[in-house]
């Protein structure tokens, strides 16, 4: 049976297709203004890639912030449950997930079957999320792609103490004007994210092995800062960013 998952996030929209539990392919586009259109487009594009007809997909689940805006799916499931299922599918040994997406960061603890045992999410503020990194990259005039690697060259990371994206941005700007090295500022930003996630990890009782998912998992600087702060290794799969969509496709297999 062919199943699919669509993960409509605040920044990017992802799709994944499975055939009898085997991953056939994934695709990612920017969400933009219209969540419904993004969901439809990414799904159609992926079907085209795979040479599949719409009718071939028997079950379809949507997830992410735009999960309820698409009506052509069988069910909408939250990204928390989907990330649990996706991480378990890709790496059955995993017990905890750190997911940092566009506007949310979360720590999810799962059982040996991939079911969510507990989770914690960031508070209302967007600090420590993908959007936060975007704002910081813009302030520092650094391409987000090289942001992560640059921080690895830092000698002494700056201290970013603000808990708010807007205030953190002004803190960064004052560091720039003081002539602080870019690498140090970026490393400081990553450490501030790691500190926030570590607080959530403690709250929720995170257990290893840990995998990191979501777009921010591509940022090696954040991953390293997290490993240092938590004192454990963090696995990052090549499918980190589409993990939620894969999880949705996995869960779609059990829809009756």
């Amino acid at each position, binding site marked *: 049976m062919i199943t699919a998952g669509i993960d409509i996030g605040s920044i990017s929209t992802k799709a994944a297709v499975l055939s009898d539990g085997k991953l056939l392919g994934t695709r990612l586009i920017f969400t933009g203004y219209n969540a419904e259109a993004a969901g439809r487009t990414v799904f159609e594009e992926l079907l085209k890639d795979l040479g599949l007809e719409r009718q071939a997909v028997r079950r379809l689940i949507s997830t992410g*912030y735009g999960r309820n805006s698409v009506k052509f799916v069988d069910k909408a*499931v*939250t*990204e*928390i*449950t989907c990330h649990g299922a996706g991480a378990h599918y890709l790496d059955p040994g995993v017990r905890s997930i750190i997911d940092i997406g566009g506007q*949310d960061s979360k720590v999810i603890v799962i059982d040996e079957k991939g*079911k*969510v*045992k*507990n*989770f914690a*999410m960031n*508070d*209302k503020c967007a600090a420590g999320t993908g959007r936060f990194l975007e704002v910081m990259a813009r302030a520092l005039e650094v391409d987000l792609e090289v942001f992560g690697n640059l921080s690895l060259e830092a000698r002494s990371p700056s201290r970013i103490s603000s808990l708010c994206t807007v205030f953190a941005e002004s803190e960064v700007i004052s560091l720039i004007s003081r002539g602080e090295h870019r690498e140090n500022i970026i490393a400081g930003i990553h450490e501030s994210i790691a500190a926030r996630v570590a607080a959530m990890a403690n*709250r929720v009782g995170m257990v290893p092995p840990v995998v990191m998912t979501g777009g921010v998992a591509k940022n090696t600087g954040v991953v390293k800062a997290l490993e240092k702060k938590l004192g454990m290794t963090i696995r990052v799969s090549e499918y980190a960013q589409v993990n939620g969509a894969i999880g949705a496709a996995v869960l779609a297999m059990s829809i009756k």
Partner: protein
Amino acid sequence: MTEHKKTKSMSLFREILLFLLSRVRRFLLHFKKHRKMKDILTVYYMEAKSARVSGRKVAWITSGGPVEPLIAMDVIPVYPENHGAMIGASKMGAGLCETSEAMGYSSDLCSYARSDIACATVNGGPIGGLPRPDMLVCCNNICGTVLKWYEVQARYFNVPLFIFDTPFCHTGFSEEVRRYVRRQLDEYVLFLEEACGRKMDHGRLSNVGKLSLEAQRLWQAVLDTTVNRPAPMSAFDAFYHLALIVTLRGTREAVDYYRRLLERMKDRVAKGIGAIPDEKYRLLWDNIPVWHRTRWLSEKFASHNACLVADTYTSAWCGSMKYIDENNFFDSMAEAYTRIYLNIGVDEMARTVLAMVDKYDVDGIVMHSNRSCKPYSLGQYDIAKVVEKERGIPSLIIEADMVDDRSFSESQVATRIDAFMEMIKASKQ
């Protein structure tokens, strides 16, 4: 006539009209067998707003304050916090909070305080402001903010303020505390006698105490009907029916209302009628309601077949009954008003929550981390951990504010609730 005098006589004219209208409404209410909360509260506010005409005094009092002596002195108690809840429920919170911020109050200040302080100056809000107080009674058993808040209002209205200080019970209750609080009760009576110009009738106070206790017992009995499956009412219904146990406990009216409500709930239980169409999951609510989103939250949980069957908030008005001596209400008030839910340590709070988890047989706890109410929100993570460890029951913490809807993100809260319910459903499979 000067402009000022004109407005004053206009307002007196309005109050006389209101007074006459309140007498008519009270008379009509008398013949109603099933008195509605809305009708009772309308008459209550009309009477309070025309107190100048009827010659009665009005006292503003904190929600956890000892109201019985006021009732015994025929003073009309008015609750700025209850007013705050009305402001929140009518979605006027953000506007009034902005007004108070423009006056110079910090946005970190409690939104009940902010909206009340703003309302006093503009006579705004859902009922055009509260009636002017003749005195203020502030009991700090619910929080410390009320001290400064009431001081501000005492200065603004230029009326006497009585502060009733109930020391925080970190681990227990001592004889020293009992004596300290008990002596303040005498001072409280003296304060009222001076403000009203006559002596307290202690026989009457004792009767008011009996009625208060009776109303509390009935309220607890109403809340306990939700031990049944399906629960005949939800916490959202309790948030509504709560108004009288807060504002009119100690009156016959409150006793009658809850007696009838109890009958209605028992009838629903007998007929198997639930608060939601298909109750599958039972949850416990913690903290003050998100007044501006009660309907949305209620529908959100109902869409998951989840009923919030109990809460730590509405039960707080009958939670210290065990300390009340029916035959010596006045003396025992000292302990009862000091040992309320918000004035005890986190360990005891956790024990209370555990007892509720067992009693109402819930599958999870929903905690409102209330930006406005620090004493209520502090310790929630610890309580969640205790419940998880002792009973294996998960908790969800949602961030919001009871009145100020600028501190609420619907899609974020929706995702947290949906994920929490998916987790509970999966664990029950």
